[in-house]
């Protein structure tokens, strides 16, 4: 069973184009410089449409998670963490933590992470996170 895939809309297409190229793209208010997520063509803090897309550092920390021991059929058979990470630029996003045991011992809150991308179809790559190297 193929993994459940997002279906981009005109407002989010740039984000998914970015992940396909190995870039995590966020948006920010051009006046205040404050970043936001998920994508939309205006800043939810001010309502301003004067916003721009920029490439995020890919650095994050682990904010919270659960370990799902009853995998969804498209997610394989092993337990996996469903995490929310705190991006260096401010916003948070849901993701999975990869290249790391899926255990409470290995997954410590506030541990440093970095983005990695997993291509799940010709048009979609998901931004996932792994323990930061060095």
């Amino acid at each position: 069973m193929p993994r459940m895939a997002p279906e981009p809309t005109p407002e989010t297409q740039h984000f998914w184009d970015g992940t396909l190229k190995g870039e995590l793209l966020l948006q920010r208010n051009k006046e205040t410089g404050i970043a936001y997520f998920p994508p939309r063509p205006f800043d939810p803090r001010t309502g301003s449409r004067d916003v721009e897309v920029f490439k995020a550092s890919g650095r994050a920390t682990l904010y919270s998670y659960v370990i799902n021991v009853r995998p969804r059929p498209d997610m394989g058979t092993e337990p996996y963490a469903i995490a929310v990470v705190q991006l260096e630029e401010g916003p948070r996003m849901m993701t999975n933590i990869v290249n790391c045991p899926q255990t409470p011992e290995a997954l410590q809150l506030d541990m440093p992470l970095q983005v990695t991308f997993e291509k799940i179809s010709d048009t979609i790559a998901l931004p996932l996170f792994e323990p930061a190297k060095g």
Partner: protein
Amino acid sequence: MKQKSVAVVGAAETTKMGKIPDVSVIGLHADAALNAMKDAGLTPADIDGVATAGVSPVELAHYLGITPTYADGTSVGGCSFMLHVRHAAAAINAGLATTILITHGESGRSRVGAGGFGRAPSSLMGQFEMPYGVGGPPTMFTIPVLRYMKTHGVTEEDLAMVAVIQREWAALNPRSSFKDPITVDDVLNSDMIAWPFRKLMCCLVTDGGGALILTSAERAKDFPQKPVYVLGTGESVETPMVSQMDDFNTSKAFRVSGKKAFDEAGISHSDVDHLMIYDAFAHLPLYGLEDLGFCKPGEAKDFIRERNTAIGGKLPLNTNGGGLSYMHSGMYGMYALQESVRQMRGIAPAQVKDANISVCHGVGGMFAASGTIIFSNEAP
């Protein structure tokens, strides 16, 4: 807006509760509605306002033969019925309708005539949460809790204690799904669902329904049941995506809704005799006690462990056994409201002696929405 001129004059749950494989969703709505109308001494011809979630108010009105001048289809998850009460109070005060029926029915367990739980893959949740393997409330509503536990030093035992004490209340309720006592060890040894959540920290999945009928306080005196007055109401919404909550340690929707209701009622926390906090999972009463202002941040775990919310405690909480032990069809808010009304009428199976004010607090989605109703059995 002050809404002191409105009261509940009819309240009932479905005839059966738990596993009801022979009734469809709309049938559960109708069964509860007919029971509530009987309770109030009314027929469908007396109802001029309808509100419901899950099914359309059009479907409800037509099925029951009601011709309303007011229809509310607010559907924000399990607390929708708190919002319906709030909107009904405003509508009655504004003259939009005189007698409003609010119904809930859900075939959560048997799935008779029930829809699915899907999200469009193009929705924000479909794009930015579903791809990571969430599988409904047990893997979504639970995500904030590890952060809350780290911030406040809350342990798995603290979460388990919520379920243990609610089971003590459930034992007093003949209609509870689960009545046998459980210990903290029982909870911590129950099946893992999504770490750190075990099965006994998660709500039931059952079939059932409930209905309320509201009218003006002035008319309420002429009905057969003791009126239960609406003193204050609040509502708010935050985010459809749990990952985008402002702060995983607290619910903004809870805080906004609770404060609005308390301000409107003009009461203080020490005036509250009875409390319902929608408990889809064991962490919700902890968040609720803190976000409603009954406890300071991080202190709810001690408040519960010291048995303040247990039988004989100073703030009886979830006295029907809650979603963890009484019943939970999917949108539990209606059952919390029913228990508040029973307590204010003085007829609850686990009746709190001399209770005059009940606070009923609901959540919708995964911390997506909230509604708070403050009831009293004394005319304001």
